């Protein structure tokens, strides 16, 4: 995340950008990309990342405007400020892309991810898993005598730490949706 909370609407070229343009610091940015919900558009977006060697940490997509047939793609990516700026410019020039928002730069945002954890275990381990799930506000959505499936929503970091804790307790599988994000306020 950017160390500076830059005001909404400012860009990396604005006078408020105090970062060293040549800094080699790697930042993670969450981008919301609004696209026409048409075949091939997602492939174009993903192809841009693979073709130009940018990395994708997480990607989620779904139609968010059924009448306008618009989808929102949320991408978490990493790079130097110059690379991030380039990624945004490259995304914006894709013809069916309407808008690119850098939620990291535009101000505070909420980021949530949903995850499912399958944990197998008996006795002590089982009780400990349940206790931790409660602390993390994870719900049990399936249970057998030897296993649970927990459901949890939270920041990616929270999900990571829950997974760490579950590992010694019999974690078998994780399914994660990737990040969905919105800026705070209006």
């Amino acid at each position, binding site marked *: 995340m950017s160390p500076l909370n830059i005001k909404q609407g400012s860009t990396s070229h604005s006078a408020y950008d105090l970062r060293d343009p040549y800094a080699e610091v790697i930042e993670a940015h969450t981008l919301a990309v609004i696209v026409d919900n048409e075949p*091939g558009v997602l492939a174009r977006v993903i192809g841009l990342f693979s073709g130009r060697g940018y990395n994708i940490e997480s990607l989620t997509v779904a139609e968010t405007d059924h009448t306008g047939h618009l989808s929102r793609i949320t991408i978490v990516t990493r790079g130097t400020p*110059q690379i991030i700026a380039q990624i945004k410019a490259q995304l914006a*020039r894709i*013809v069916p892309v309407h808008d690119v928002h850098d939620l990291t730069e535009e101000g505070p945002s909420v980021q949530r991810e949903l995850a499912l954890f399958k944990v197998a275990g008996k006795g002590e381990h089982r009780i400990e898993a349940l206790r931790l799930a409660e602390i993390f506000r994870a719900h049990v959505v399936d249970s057998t005598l030897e296993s649970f499936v927990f459901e949890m929503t939270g920041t990616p970091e929270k999900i990571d730490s829950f997974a760490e804790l579950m590992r010694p307790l019999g974690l078998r599988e994780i399914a994660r949706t990737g990040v969905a994000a919105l800026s705070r306020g209006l």
Partner: protein
Amino acid sequence: MTQAMTGARMVVQALKDQGVEVVFGYPGGAVLPIYDEIFQQNDIRHILVRHEQGAIHMAEGYARSTGKVGVALVTSGPGATNAVTGLVDALMDSIPLVVLTGQVPTFMIGTDGFQEADTVGITRPCTKMNWLVKDTANLSSTIHQAFHVARSGRPGPVLIDIPKDVQFATSDYVVKEKIKTGHYQPKLKGDIDQITRLVEMIETAERPILYTGGGVINSGPAASQLLRELAEATGFPVTSTLMGLGAYPASGKNWLGMLGMHGLYEANLAMHGCDLMINIGARFDDRITGRLKDFSPNSRKAHIDIDASSINKVIRVDVPILGDVGHVLEDLLRIWKSRGRKVNKEGLAKWWAQINDWRAVKCLTYKNSTSIIKPQYALERLEALTKGMDRYITTEVGQHQMWAAQFLGFEDPNRWMTSGGLGTMGYGLPASIGVQIAHPEALVINVAGEASWLMNMQEMGTAMQFRAPVKQFILNNERLGMVRQWQELLHGERYSQSWSESLPDFVKLAEAFGCKGIKVSDPKDLDDAILEMIRYDGPVIFDCLVEKHENCFPMIPSGKPHNEMLLGDADTQGVIGAKGAVLV
């Protein structure tokens, strides 16, 4: 008023409504309905090529020499895959094309049907945009939208994949005026604050330079006119990339020649030493910048470009101006004039004195010979004997291409067609045909290397069939000259696979195609041979046997800065370090 028609007829109707006069194409099963419609009309001319790659390069030549969108039509599967190289070529060089491909019927897509290929999948990274049209109701609007996308903003190739059942089915035709071009509306006007900042820099700069590129050509003839006005009015020196030649006239007094890897000494040193660099529609390509960290270290840089992704991509600029060259230059000139047309006269006078010292080096000097034709000499003679004619030049890729850029002078935009970004050998011959189709009366010359020329030589058949009197000026060094030069400089003179063996007899080849062949090897005969070529009313294959081991200089070796340029007489041994050797 709506009109129902088949998809195939819609294609032809939409092309007509878009003002298309010529289509370059090659038929096959998946486009038969469209060919049937083409057969039944006379407004659109169809040029039957010999290979689909040829169709795309012809459309590129047509587009670049007219400023219009080039159109090609090919069949599914191999037709589409053969077009891929041309699509990437057009994408790299910002050439507007609409390419129509046939596809297996919608109900067969995904079944590995006969001549099925995932054309939109394959061409997605090769196009500015592409569409698979699955419903005839969307076909005409997609075609109109495609023309809008191809020509707007930074131009580029687009592709429409049309399954055969969509061509047969009937629906209502949507006229182009009814089309919502949607949100894709690139910004043309530049930010006035930024333009004003640039004007302030122009007023005080001591050592300015205008670094112009293909974007000036893309912007249209008015942009070239404004560039000329800016250069004359300010007295600033002008250099250009390979792609921008002709935007500022070679005879203009501020002209420094091309810059870059094989650019002129004075142009590169001026770029290195300037204090204000004004990039107008160029993209800081690696052929220009050399070693990035030493690129023009003491200058402030402004960049006018219509594509935000070109700005700050590799070189950080101080004044980014997002917009169309023509629009921005108009505002720039207006503001500069309204503030009193100021420039730093003393600074400029010193700067020109310095530039003239660099010019005095005469970096294009070469050792001529009375027994062997030097390629540079051949081009000097071609230039002298065709100067002032209504002339268009295309090239293949290699040393001959660089010599053509150095030794031929371009007075106007759209007169020089070359494959810059992709460097596609085999581009020049078909491109020359596309140019000739657009300008039937003009003198169209493809400056070629023998190896490149062979790559698409089948298109001589197209030239013959459609009476395109293109002149194929082959500088035959019996070498993959550019490769050989790199091997000499970088790989210890181990000439691995870089010679042309078993070459055809080009004169007999010309006869076989039914055109004229001319062979010349003695410098004394060169002028007469060139005149014979120009005067011949039809296509000519001109086999000019030239010095085999000539190197193209100046050269900035990969990974070196501008001020470490090699001139002709330099000792070239070991000049490229290990780091440079990994670069291309």
